C-alpha cells in the first residue's frame, strides 16, 4: 500500500488524498509526505494508523520527514502506533485542551472509559460536551458492533483554535458498510450502501421496521444531523464509496432522512478502503443547543418511518 500525506487534507479538500491512496500490496506500507508542510485532519492519521496495525513494522517505510510541522505527527502518536522510529526526539506536552492522540478501542469497556475522558481531554464546556461525547460514542460503538474488525476503532481528534472547531476521525479496517448492510438489503454498490446506512431506521441487522432489540439503525443519521445543524463537514468512506455532507448555504434548517437530499458530494470510484472511515468537524461557534437538535431529529425520524410505511400501503385496484 502507498499513502501520501499532503500539505493539506481536511474534510473540505480531502478528495485528492483519498484518490492518491494505493491499496495494492497489502503487506507493505510506504508513507510519503509533503516536504514543506503537513496540516491534516485526524481522519488521515487514523486511516494510516489503522492500515499500519495490519502490517509488520518491518514492512512499513516512511520518508524522512522534512516538513516543519512534522512534530504534529509524532505528538499525535502516529509513529509509536506504527512502531517505527521517526528520528524525532521532542518533548511531549500534555495533550489536554488540544487533541486526543491516536487511540485504539477494542471493546465496550475501552469505549466507556474513553468517553468519560473526552470532556476533560478537550476541555469542553457542557454545551459542546454533549454533542462531541454523543458523536464519539455512537460512531465508535458502530465500529465495535458492525465492523467485525479485530483491531476495533482507531480514533483521534484535534481542537483547532483558529476555526474554533473540533475535528474527529474514527476508522476501522473491518467488513465495510456494503457487507454490513447487505445482510438485510441489497445495495448495488458502496455508495448506495452508505446512503442506506445514513437513512434512519435502516440497519444491516434486520429489514424490520423499528430495528432489532439492540439496533435501531439511527446512529449515523443522528451524527449527520448534528453536523448538518452545526453547518459542519461530515464524511464517510467505505469500499470505493464516499459521501460528504457539505456546509449548508441556506439558513433554514430542515433535516432530511435521505442523505442525497442534503447538500453533499459523493463518489463511487475511489481506491478501495477495506473498512470504514468517518470524519466530522464540529464548529464550536455554531453549535446549537443539543436539545433543539433533538427536537428536529424527532420530527425527521418519525416522518421517515411514516413515509416508509405509506410506501408499503396496498393500493386499491380500479378497473
Amino acid at each position, binding site marked *: 500500500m502507498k499513502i501520501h500525506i499532503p500539505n493539506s487534507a481536511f474534510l473540505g479538500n480531502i478528495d485528492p488524498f483519498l484518490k492518491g491512496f494505493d491499496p495494492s500490496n497489502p503487506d507493505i506500507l510506504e508513507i510519503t509526505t509533503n516536504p514543506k508542510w503537513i496540516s491534516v485532519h485526524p481522519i488521515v492519521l487514523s486511516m494510516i494508523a489503522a492500515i499500519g496495525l495490519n502490517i509488520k513494522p518491518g514492512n512499513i517505510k516512511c520518508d524522512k520527514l522534512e516538513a516543519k510541522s512534522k512534530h504534529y505527527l509524532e505528538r499525535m502518536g502516529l509513529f509509536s502506533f506504527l512502531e517505527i522510529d521517526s528520528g524525532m526526539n521532542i518533548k511531549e506536552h500534555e495533550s489536554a485542551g488540544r487533541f486526543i492522540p491516536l487511540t485504539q478501542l477494542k471493546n*465496550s469497556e475501552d469505549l466507556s472509559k474513553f468517553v468519560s475522558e473526552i470532556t476533560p481531554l478537550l476541555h469542553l464546556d*457542557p454545551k459542546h460536551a454533549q454533542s462531541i461525547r454523543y458523536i464519539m460514542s455512537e460512531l465508535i*460503538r458502530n465500529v465495535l458492533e458492525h465492523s467485525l474488525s479485530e483491531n476495533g476503532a482507531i480514533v483521534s481528534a484535534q481542537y483547532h483554535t483558529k476555526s474554533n472547531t473540533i475535528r474527529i476521525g474514527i476508522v476501522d479496517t473491518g467488513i465495510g458498510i456494503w457487507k454490513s448492510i447487505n445482510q438485510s438489503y441489497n445495495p448495488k454498490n458502496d455508495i448506495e450502501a452508505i446512503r442506506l446506512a445514513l437513512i434512519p431506521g435502516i440497519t444491516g441487522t434486520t429489514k424490520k421496521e*423499528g430495528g432489532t432489540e439492540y439496533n*435501531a439503525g439511527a446512529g449515523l443519521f443522528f451524527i449527520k444531523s448534528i453536523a448538518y445543524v452545526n453547518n459542519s463537514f461530515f464524511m464517510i468512506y467505505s469500499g470505493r464509496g464516499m459521501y460528504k455532507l457539505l456546509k449548508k448555504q441556506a439558513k433554514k434548517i430542515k433535516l432530511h432522512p435521505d442523505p442525497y437530499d442534503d447538500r453533499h458530494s459523493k463518489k463511487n470510484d475511489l481506491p478501495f478502503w477495506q473498512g470504514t472511515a468517518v470524519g466530522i468537524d464540529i464548529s464550536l461557534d455554531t453549535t446549537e443547543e443539543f436539545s433543539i437538535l433533538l427536537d428536529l431529529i424527532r420530527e425527521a425520524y418519525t416522518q421517515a418511518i*411514516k413515509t416508509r*410505511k405509506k410506501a408499503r400501503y396496498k393500493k386499491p385496484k380500479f378497473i
Partner: protein
Amino acid sequence: MITIKLFEKTGLFAENKDVARDIRIKEIIPELEKNEGVVLDFENIEGATQSFIHALISDLFRKYGNDVLEKITFKSCNETVQKIIEIVTDYMQESE
C-alpha cells in the same frame, strides 16, 4: 413497583448498550412479567445515546405492546435525556 437507579450502572453518560440490555432483561422484564410497574430513575445522568435508550426499552414495545408505557415511569430525566426517550418511544410506536 420497583425503582431502578441507572446512574449506579451507567455513570454520567449512559451509552453502554450491554448495560442497557442487562437492565432490561434482568430487572425490567421480570417486574413486568409480574404485572408490576417499573420506575427508571435517571438522577445524576447528564446524557444518554439513542442507542442506549433503544437497547433499554425498545424490545418492551414488541413484547408488551404500546401499553407498556403505562407500566414504566421515567424519573429525574434532564431535558436532553427526556427528548431522547421521546424519540425512541415515538419511533417504536410508529413502527408497530
